[in-house]
């Protein structure tokens, strides 16, 4: 006995679901219809055959007359021909004189309830329906009502009721089969675009991550969009990885070559004082290389998270506070202070806190490395935008560097030993990933760089 792999059991096909649904619908409808049709059939049969009774009873009543002061009845054959239209039913009849005695007909019929015209009772042990019609006479000799009672067993009525029910159900059965067949055809044709989509995906080159170009029905459009967006993210991730690897290799080559050259120099240097100077340079170089690697990792992390991490409400004041308290900047600028400038109102945005923290740390490091103290970190709301910013008292980076932000980030940074461009690039990426931007501005109180983000409720 084979077991289906857990969690991957094939779910019921849409055709089977629809067929099941329609069958259930038809069953419920069939039972309802059968009951309704039978109720209707019984009423219809009752009305139809009651008219026979009315016709026959009136026919008989019309032949009742007074002859020589006595009530006489000349039974009309036509009344019985009328009743014989219910081909297989027994006939009961009775004509009663004004004194209640039976003039003719069956002497032992069940008597009608008071004032009833139609009534149900047995005839010779078989259920039957009766009608009483009273003909009134007001003559010198005779005054009073002559009762004519006509009854008939129920075979024809029952047969008609069943017949109506049967025909209604035949109709339903034919309609049901047609509906099932149509449903299968409709489901097949409705699912054809999905088949086409699946074939197209299956037939693709594994490296091909371009969007699908299939024309899809409106209902399937979200699926196609999702697939395309997924493939887009995948493509970007791949692109980032490729860039990271090539950039890393490219950027590390120069400092590592420089280190090697310095090391070679140190090995061949015999003068201790000069060798110490060379070693000092090697130390500085390796520190710089370490910072570069940190930032590259940081950038990789930020780019990766912006595509994959879940967004959550973050108060920018918490980020600022967190950075001041954690003292990360101590590594870059030992012994230097950082000021905190936050208000009382929450500054909440939808973003990944870790990415924001990383961006702010980079900006802070830049400020310490290249700016002029005092350095301040703060969060505020300005003109509807939510800001997380770093300020120092200097003039900011040179115009050439500002213009280069956003280009492939590392090209020149490490070669020149400058890494502020890299920090700005990381921050810019983070800001853009959450629908914002990086703002650099020279203000009266110094240079300020800010992550400008849309408010939480402004997020889609």
């Amino acid at each position, binding site marked *: 006995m084979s077991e289906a792999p857990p969690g991957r059991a094939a779910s019921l096909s849409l055709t089977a679901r629809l067929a099941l649904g329609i069958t259930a619908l038809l069953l419920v409808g069939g039972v309802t219809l059968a009951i309704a049709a039978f109720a209707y059939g019984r009423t219809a049969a009752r009305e139809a055959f009651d008219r026979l009774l009315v016709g026959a009873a009136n026919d008989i009543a019309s032949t009742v007359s007074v002859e020589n002061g006595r009530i006489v009845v*000349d039974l009309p054959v036509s009344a019985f021909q009328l009743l014989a239209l219910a081909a297989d039913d027994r006939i009961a009849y009775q004509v009663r004189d004004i004194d209640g005695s039976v003039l003719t007909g069956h002497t032992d019929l069940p008597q009608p309830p008071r004032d009833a015209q139609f009534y149900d009772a047995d005839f010779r042990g078989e259920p039957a329906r009766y009608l009483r019609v009273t003909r009134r006479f007001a003559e010198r000799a005779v005054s009073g009502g002559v009762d004519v009672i006509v009854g008939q067993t129920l075979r024809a009525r029952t047969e008609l009721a069943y017949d109506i029910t049967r025909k209604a159900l035949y109709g339903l059965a034919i309609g049901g089969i047609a509906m099932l067949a149509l449903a299968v055809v409709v489901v097949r044709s409705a699912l054809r675009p999905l088949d086409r989509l699946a074939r197209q995906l299956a037939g693709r080159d594994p490296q091909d991550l371009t969007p699908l170009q299939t024309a899809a029905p409106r209902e399937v459009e979200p699926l196609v969009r999702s697939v395309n967006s997924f493939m887009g993210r995948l493509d970007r991730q791949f692109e980032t990885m490729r860039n990271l690897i090539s950039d890393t290799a490219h950027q590390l080559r120069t400092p590592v070559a420089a280190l090697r050259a310095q090391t070679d120099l140190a090995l061949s240097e015999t003068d201790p004082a000069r060798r110490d100077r060379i070693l000092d340079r090697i130390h500085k170089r390796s520190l710089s290389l370490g910072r570069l690697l940190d930032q590259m990792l940081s950038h990789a992390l930020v780019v990766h998270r912006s595509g994959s991490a879940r967004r959550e409400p973050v108060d920018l004041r918490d980020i600022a506070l967190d950075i001041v308290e954690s003292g990360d900047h101590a590594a870059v600028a030992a012994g230097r202070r950082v000021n905190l400038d936050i208000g009382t109102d929450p500054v909440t945005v939808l973003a990944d806190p870790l990415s924001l923290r990383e961006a702010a740390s980079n900006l802070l490091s830049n400020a310490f490395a290249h700016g002029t103290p005092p350095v301040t970190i703060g969060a505020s709301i300005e003109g509807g935008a939510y800001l997380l910013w770093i300020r120092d008292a200097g003039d900011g980076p040179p115009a050439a560097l500002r213009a280069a932000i956003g280009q492939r980030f590392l090209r020149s940074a490490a070669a020149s030993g400058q890494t502020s461009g890299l920090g700005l690039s990381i921050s810019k990426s983070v800001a853009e990933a959450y629908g914002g931007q990086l703002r650099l501005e020279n203000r009266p109180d110094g240079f300020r760089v800010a992550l400008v983000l849309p408010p939480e409720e402004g997020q889609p």
Partner: protein
Amino acid sequence: MIRAILLTLLLALPAQAQEARARFGAPGDTDPLILRTTTDIAVFGPTVRAYLDAHPDLAIVFEQWGSNDLYALSAAECAAGRPTADVIISSAVHQMIMLVNDRCATSWTSPATESLPDDLRWRDEIWGISREPAVIVYNRRLVPPGDVPQSRFALLDLLRPEGSLYAGLVATYDIEASGLGYLFAFMDSQEATTFGALMEAFARSGAVATCCSAEIIRGVADGTYRIAYNVLGSYAAIQATANPDLGLVYPSDYTLVLSRAAILPGRGTPRPEAGAFLDFLLSPEGQSTMAQMNLIMGSGALSLDATEDDAPASARLIPLSPTLLVPMDRAYEARFIARWRAAFGH
């Protein structure tokens, strides 16, 4: 086989209305099928024998009754809930219809009964087994060919003149004594306005009403009557083959055709032997033995499987329908007979 048939013919006792009684078939059968019928033993006996030839273990007691007495007995037994007959066959079909309507007969269905046309069965409790026309019988010696009435109008013309040669010499059934005669008269009254004129002519010419087919036909044969009206063709045809003086006319305006009715009295399931006997009567074999005794007369047009469409326009089958409850109505019968009696001057 013939030796095995025990035939006992008993003369009817005055206290009993039973006219004759015979036992056919296996002497050892202690529970024979009881067949009560208005048909003469001589006429229907061969059919019973043909059936018993194929069923050697079975015996049938054949009781011959007058129609009114047969009805009275059957109705009384039904009311008491103790039917003693297994099969009842009567020419007075209106009486059989009454019994069926009063739930005195049980139902039986088989391919044979289902192949009957609607007019020859009702509720699957009554079936028409024969086809016998009502004919005019005349004496060839006493009625010249030019006088032979081919229709009721011709008969009227024959009786119309003052001092007609046929005054007092025309006979028909006494409808009080004969259930079949009453049925024929009722059907005539339904069929055409001729009936009133005929009654009037009968009354004026002093026609004779008497009982029973055999008596009427004998009267025509020996010259007591010259013409008999509405005689059951099956009996007349038998006599005519023996006596060339007898002539038969199927009235051309319309000819009533009687189909004797069979019922299986009782309320529960019928005796299977009774149902099987009924199936035999309706089978081609049973029909052909009945045809030999003129119980099924005429060409294919009058045979059992003929439909109304291909029957001649003049044939009027008496349908087995609840319409026949009308002649069974007490008040109707009383008025009808009063009119009839006034005409015949009783």
